[in-house]
């Protein structure tokens, strides 16, 4: 049974910006479903439509069987929301934060007390219930944030970039918690991320989203298999200058169309060559290139990653997107957050 189902879900912002452009997908009960894509792909907008924070321009969706537009009140009662900003109150204790949300979900005081105890155990915060959140570490805050989305035992929990801004070690920890939550609590999880590893490790199903459209969907293995074979990455030069780009163009021209090559994609300073069998392709590649006088500085062979999937469908890497320019407003916001 699908806990989330969307029907041509669309959000258009003023200026005809199609942030989410007619997407269809279904999420099964009890699974972790990841929306993978670069910043600005439409991930957050999708979550905000599903958790009723913003209305779709057209199309609709059901969450836990309720229509997000017509039955928004019921939808809210059945979902938990973990936003990208850690929305916890620093001037309150962990228990006070959690209790407030218990009341918002119409739980009685006795149930809240019991749930608070259970949930603090679940996210390993037992003993810190009555400390002010301002004394919590970043990882603890995120765990409290997760806990707040679970107080009412929701059917589905939405996590928007759950590990963005956390250090790599804490990130791995949070992944463990997310996995445990779905396993023990049985909650259906919908998360967005621009970390391929996050989607790869956590998700049962992945939808790759770019510019408001789903460009590929399936399990991690299915997606990787869809490219077929291996990826051979060639670096013909050390410096990423114009000369290097010229080298890559020439290399691509030599290799594309050869029978053992299923596709090529050039990126900044590197050329990805998709082949059926990497082991036998490398000698042929080397031979072809040296006969054209092209010297390869580095060559590597790998099973396709989700980044290769993204690259194959969009011609860009997700990694390359991480350095999107920060707006001045974002800088100000972050600064004011630090001051608090």
């Amino acid at each position, binding site marked *: 049974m699908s806990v989330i189902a969307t029907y041509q879900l669309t959000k258009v912002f003023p200026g005809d910006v199609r942030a989410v452009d007619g997407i269809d997908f279904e999420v099964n009960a009890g699974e972790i479903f990841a929306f993978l894509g670069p910043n600005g792909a439409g991930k957050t907008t999708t979550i905000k439509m599903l958790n009723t924070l913003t209305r779709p321009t057209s199309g609709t969706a059901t969450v836990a069987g309720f229509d997000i537009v017509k039955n928004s009140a019921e939808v809210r009662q059945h979902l938990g929301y973990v936003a990208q900003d850690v*929305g916890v109150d620093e*001037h309150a204790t962990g228990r006070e934060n959690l209790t407030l949300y218990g009341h*918002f979900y119409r739980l009685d005081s006795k149930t809240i007390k019991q749930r608070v105890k259970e949930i603090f155990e679940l996210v390993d915060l037992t003993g810190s219930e009555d400390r002010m959140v301002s004394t919590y570490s970043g990882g603890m805050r995120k765990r409290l944030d997760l806990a707040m989305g679970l107080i009412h035992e929701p059917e589905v929990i939405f996590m928007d970039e759950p590990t963005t801004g956390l250090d790599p070690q804490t990130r791995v920890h949070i992944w463990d918690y997310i996995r445990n939550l779905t396993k023990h609590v049985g909650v259906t999880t919908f998360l967005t991320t621009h970390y391929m590893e996050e989607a790869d490790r956590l998700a049962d199903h992945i939808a790759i989203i770019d510019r408001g459209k789903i460009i590929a969907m399936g399990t991690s293995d299915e997606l990787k298999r869809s490219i077929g074979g291996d990826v051979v990455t060639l670096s013909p030069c050390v410096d990423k200058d114009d000369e290097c780009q010229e080298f890559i163009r020439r290399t691509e021209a030599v290799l594309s169309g050869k029978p053992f090559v299923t596709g090529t994609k050039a990126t900044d300073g590197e050329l990805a060559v998709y082949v059926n069998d990497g082991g036998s392709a490398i000698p042929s590649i080397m031979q072809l290139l040296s006969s054209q006088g092209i010297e390869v500085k580095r060559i590597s062979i790998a099973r396709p990653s989700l980044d290769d999937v993204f690259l194959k469908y969009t011609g860009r890497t997700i990694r390359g997107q991480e350095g999107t320019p920060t707006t001045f407003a974002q800088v100000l916001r972050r600064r004011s957050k630090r001051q608090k």
Partner: protein
Amino acid sequence: MDAVADTWFIVLRGLRARIRMPVFIAMSLFQPILWLVLFTQIFKSLGNTPGLGGSSYLQFFAPGVVVMTVMFGSAFSGFGMLMDIDMGILAKMLATPVTRASIIVGHVTAAVVVLIVQALLVFIIAAIMGVHFATGVPGVLLALVLVTLLGLGFAAFSNGLALLVRRQEILMTVTNLITMPLMFLSSMMMPGSLLPNWLDTVRHFNPVDYTIVGVRDLVQQGYVWSDLWRALAVLLAWAVAGIAFGTLAFRTRAE
């Protein structure tokens, strides 16, 4: 019932946060004391001026300080809402079944509750400094009703503005731009009879002035019902306008 409960819990959260900031409590008391001491020293020689009501300048000025305390406190209360927006707390709350209106009502109520306590404390400090209350305790209670209505309007406007502008710098500028003239275009420091004609006219469009006149009557003269009824009517309209604006801003931005 849910709405009442939701509001209650949000008010509780607001009060708790304020009580936990000792700096906030200290500053909010220090400022009115500073006003009372400094201004009464500066204008001391005006104490015998005829239009002042025949008593000391402190006696004349203290009601104004009470009103000022409430006005500034409530006019800046939108910063709490802005912080909730910046920290992602508002968005998180809106994704729960919480009654929408109780969020803004809760924010405004928490601010006003704190201000009533503050106003009462300023009255007590004024009494200690030697201010005589013509109407006694019942008069002070009626004065608190007046300033509560004033604070309600300001707090609701400020919270609504916070939701609309969403930037600290803008909120700060706009609030200063509104509160400063409202303070000076009133009979706070000088009785109306001693003000230039144009100012004496303008102040009749200023809800702050109605509050000052009402509270000052209660402290200096007694129950001047013509003034008091007018103040009550104007301030009720002011509070309703503020709440309407705040709710509307909340609907536009949060839904």
